């Protein structure tokens, strides 16, 4: 038996490199700096580019420019940096630039409890720029998933020509753990059997600037097919509808969950990211005490995998939702389910991971 010791930052880096990432720009911030150092060290070795820029605005600006010139781009930050990414995420949406952004969440607001684990930015990722257009957000619960979901994020970014977030956190990125051999490698024997993302882009592929006699225009303004600014309401309506629809209409393709359902269970525990691990530990405890309980891990936070969630609710009377914020995903579930299902949050915003015992307690409540 062979194992290795790894932290999430290394797993994410390997995922990005194995996905073909050849451009990274970022600005140091704990708990995302590990990714910055790994990428800057590794990229020049494979002929890519890794940069530390003067701030987060410049970092994401460099990424978007490089992507328009054909790079497969990546950046990572935490809440304060995501705040500065905001305007350019809108630009990436408008220009339809594939862009993977890892957000290693720490406890805010502002500088907050630097640097402690949190999950307070999952709504922020969804609504992080003006206009309200959809983005894709994936969230790993452990180190192998950090690797595989990073790779998947690149596939989704390319397919949808859109920003894709990896919603991770301080604990997952900075804790070193032993993992099975090659759990984070292209040779992973134990790779999750997730449905493959089709390689061809939805709509027109991005054609990069290159010296081949063809000319391309990219703009953050509402534009026609030639990439020129337009004020024509019909063209604008059509384009904006497409921006929203390309993701929303393919929610099924993006949706990714892990359902661990038990027959006869009336309680479902639903979680994501680091809190899903506490959930898993709690489920073990409950089942070893002969309690019936189902569990649902959400990997694709946005767009919300509504159908998949609803499919897990047969016989469920109560949903417990552990998350390290004040109930940001609970409010989404609330509007999904019928009012006769009771919703119960287990929430912590005090730097300490939600304990399995707290979830067990909520079960007995």
């Amino acid at each position: 038996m062979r194992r290795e010791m790894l932290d999430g930052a290394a797993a994410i880096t390997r995922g990005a490199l194995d996905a073909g990432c050849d451009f990274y720009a970022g600005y140091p911030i704990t708990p995302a700096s590990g990714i910055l150092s790994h990428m800057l060290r590794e990229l020049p070795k494979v002929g890519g580019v890794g940069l530390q820029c003067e701030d987060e605005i410049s970092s994401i600006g460099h990424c978007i420019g490089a992507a328009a010139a054909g790079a497969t781009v990546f950046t990572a930050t935490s809440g304060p940096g995501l705040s500065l990414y905001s305007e350019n995420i809108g630009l990436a949406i408008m220009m339809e630039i594939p862009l993977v952004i890892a957000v290693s969440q720490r406890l805010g607001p502002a500088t907050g409890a630097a640097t402690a684990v949190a999950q307070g930015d999952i709504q922020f990722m969804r609504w992080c720029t003006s206009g309200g257009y959809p983005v894709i957000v994936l969230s790993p619960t452990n180190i192998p998933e950090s690797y595989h979901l990073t790779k998947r994020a690149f596939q989704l970014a390319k397919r949808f020509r859109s920003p894709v977030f990896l919603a991770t956190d301080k604990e997952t990125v900075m804790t070193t753990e032993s993992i099975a051999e090659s759990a984070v490698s292209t040779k992973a024997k134990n790779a999750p059997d997730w449905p493959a993302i089709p390689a061809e882009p939805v709509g027109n592929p991005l054609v990069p600037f290159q010296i081949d006699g063809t000319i391309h225009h990219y703009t953050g303004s509402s534009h026609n097919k030639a990439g020129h600014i337009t004020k024509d309401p019909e063209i604008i309506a059509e384009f904006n509808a497409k921006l929203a629809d390309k993701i929303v209409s393919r929610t099924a393709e993006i949706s990714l969950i892990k359902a661990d359902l038990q027959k006869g269970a009336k309680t479902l525990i639903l979680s994501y990211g680091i809190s899903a691990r506490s959930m898993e530990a709690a489920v073990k405890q409950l089942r070893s005490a002969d309690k019936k309980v189902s569990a649902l891990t959400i990997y694709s936070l946005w767009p919300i995998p509504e159908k998949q969630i609803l499919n897990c609710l047969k016989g469920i009377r109560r949903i417990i939702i552990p998350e390290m914020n004040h109930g940001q995903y609970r409010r989404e579930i609330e509007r999904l389910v019928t009012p006769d299902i009771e919703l119960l949050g287990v929430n912590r915003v005090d730097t300490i991971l939600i304990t399995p015992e707290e979830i067990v307690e909520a079960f007995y409540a």
Partner: protein
Amino acid sequence: MPEIVPETYIAEQNLPYDFCPGCSHGQILGALNKSLLQQQLDPSEVVIVTDIGCVGLSDKYFVTHAFHGLHGRSITYASGIKMQNPNLKVVVLIGDGGCGIGGHHLLNAARTNTDVTVLVFNNFNFGMTGGQHSVTTPLNSITATTALGSSDAPMDIAGTAQVNGGGFVARATAFDKDLPDVITKAMKHDGFALLDIWELCTAYYVARNDFGRKEMLGYMDSMQMKSGILQETKRPGFQTRYKALKQQSKNQDKLKSLLLETKYASTLDKPISIVLAGAAGQKVVSAGNLLATAATLSGLWASIRADFPITIQTGFSVAEIIISPEPVLYSGIIKPDIAALIAAEGKTKITRLTKEMDQADTIYFAAGLGEVDSGAKKIPLLFPEGIVKSIKKNISILTAAMLVQELDIFPFKALREAVRKIQKTKVAEINLEILANFEENK
């Protein structure tokens, strides 16, 4: 020479310009066209990156590639494009407004000497939004937002690029006959090139102030600012330097896995949590890594989180280790099974944890730490004198050795193997000797 060189780089089907009559923006675009003609560039070799403002309308007037981004950020996109494809010629068209909101990017692009050419359309105010004051608005000028006259010292854009190391810096006016030549020089320069081009916004700045071509030149004189090329250095552009880094890194080892073969057996049947609490400089975290690695070498699963202040060379240093027969799910520690208090800083830091501990748990404590407020069993951390030169300096590795011996969940050999596996040769040698002495003395 490219196969097809156009007769003009202006997209004539999109003319006339949308600018106001008399606006100098069109004049500068004309000069850029002349420069591109001088250089005989393939249009697909050129990327024009436009900022926001009236100047930002310019992308549609060229038959080259174009990128129209956000206010003040054009230099960052341009630099990214050039990093990805250094064969492209990348030209930024930005206003004085863009140089204000994006000033940080401008001065850092000068510092890094990123190989883009920046043409500043400096008309002393925000044209597009209605003639508000900008960073270059001259003192006492009337603008939409300075009814009493501007009282802020104007920013010298060319000077800013100059003092921050910009490779090629020039000051010019939109009316200079040699403007195309200077643009060509700037574009040929390897490194950051900036032209601060003074010009007229007829709709606002000119209309509100007694300011025409003549006054503009007079103002330049009165500010003791010169026109022409102000700086030309030989420092290679960032992209050229980065190419060298790529070349140099090519044969270096890539990120690879450090595989840990299960060599030893363990009797552990439930998770055990250990907290090592010491001070900066005591190598607490590396001792924690050794324990976690040794456990992994013994077929167990481990997690380790390090905690230390941002000011890394002072204060506490804490390692939280969980060792388990199953993969670790909950990596937090609320009530440790074992705590080793190695220094006062660590002791204070983990008070919350030690208070939770009871008789089932054990606290090891170094000499001189005083009372420990906990219901746990307490055992002093004692090592025979002479076992190493300085017990104090090596207390973390000694504590790890002691824990391996006391807990007996995997063989001592596993710890030695961990040292060999993960520590640098020099450190490993020292630590292996310490471990040997420890074993002899036990």
